[in-house]
C-alpha cells in the first residue's frame, strides 16, 4: 500500500541553524501539507500546497518557514533559523483530493538545542 515517507526520522540542530525536512508524498496525490505537534499538544496545521504554490498557511508559518516541491516527488519544509520553540514532531501529509482525507507520514522529530 502506498505511503507517505519522511526523512530524517529525528533531527537535532542548534538554535539559529537552518533545517530542511524531507517528505515523499503518495504518487498521484495532488495536495500536500505540513503539520506539527509540540509534545503534549494537538496536531497543528502549518501550510498546504497545491498546483505548485502555497494554498494556505497558518500564523505559525512565518517568514522563517518555506516549502518547496523541487521535483515531481519530493516536498520539503525549510526552517531558516530555528528557535527552541520549533522543537516538535513535523508531519507531512498528502491527499488525492477526496474531501478531508489526508494521509500522514511517520513524522520527523525536530529537537532544537
Amino acid at each position, binding site marked *: 500500500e502506498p505511503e*507517505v515517507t*519522511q526523512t530524517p526520522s529525528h533531527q537535532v540542530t542548534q538554535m539559529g541553524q537552518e533545517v530542511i525536512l524531507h517528505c515523499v508524498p503518495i504518487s498521484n496525490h495532488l*495536495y*500536500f*501539507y505540513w*503539520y506539527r505537534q509540540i509534545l503534549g*499538544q*494537538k*496536531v*497543528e*496545521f502549518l501550510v*498546504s*500546497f*497545491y498546483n505548485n504554490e502555497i*494554498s*494556505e498557511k*497558518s500564523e505559525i508559518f512565518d517568514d522563517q518557514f518555506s516549502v518547496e516541491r523541487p521535483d515531481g516527488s519530493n516536498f520539503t519544509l525549510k526552517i531558516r533559523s530555528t528557535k527552541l520553540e520549533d522543537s516538535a514532531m513535523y*508531519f507531512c*501529509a498528502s*491527499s488525492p483530493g477526496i*474531501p*478531508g*482525507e*489526508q*494521509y*500522514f*507520514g*511517520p*513524522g520527523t*522529530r525536530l529537537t532544537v538545542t
Partner: protein
Amino acid sequence: DQQVKQNSPSLSVQEGRISILNCDYTNSMFDYFLWYKKYPAEGPTFLISISSIKDKNEDGRFTVFLNKSAKHLSLHIVPSQPGDSAVYFCAASAYYTGTASKLTFGTGTRLQVTL
C-alpha cells in the same frame, strides 16, 4: 482557538465492549469530519470520515455518527480489541473545490482496551 474539542483525555474499555469517543466542534463551515488513530512515534492513521450531508458512516467495527444540530460527532468501536489502544484524534475540514483544505484537530482521547 478550540474549534474542535475532545473533552475526554482518556477512556478505558474492556475487550469486546463498545468504545465511544466524542468530539464537539464550533465552526459551522466544517463539512467533513474524520477520525485518526495515532500510536506513539508514528503519524496519524486515517480511520473513517463522514460528510456533513450524512448522519452515519460505517466501516467494519468503526461507525461515526454526526449530529449537525448539536455540532457533535462520535466514533463507536464494536467490539473493542487490545490493538485499538491508541490516541484517537477527531479532525474537521471545510472543503472548497480546488483548494487544499486543511484539517483542524482536537486534542485527542487516549483509548485503553483492557483484557
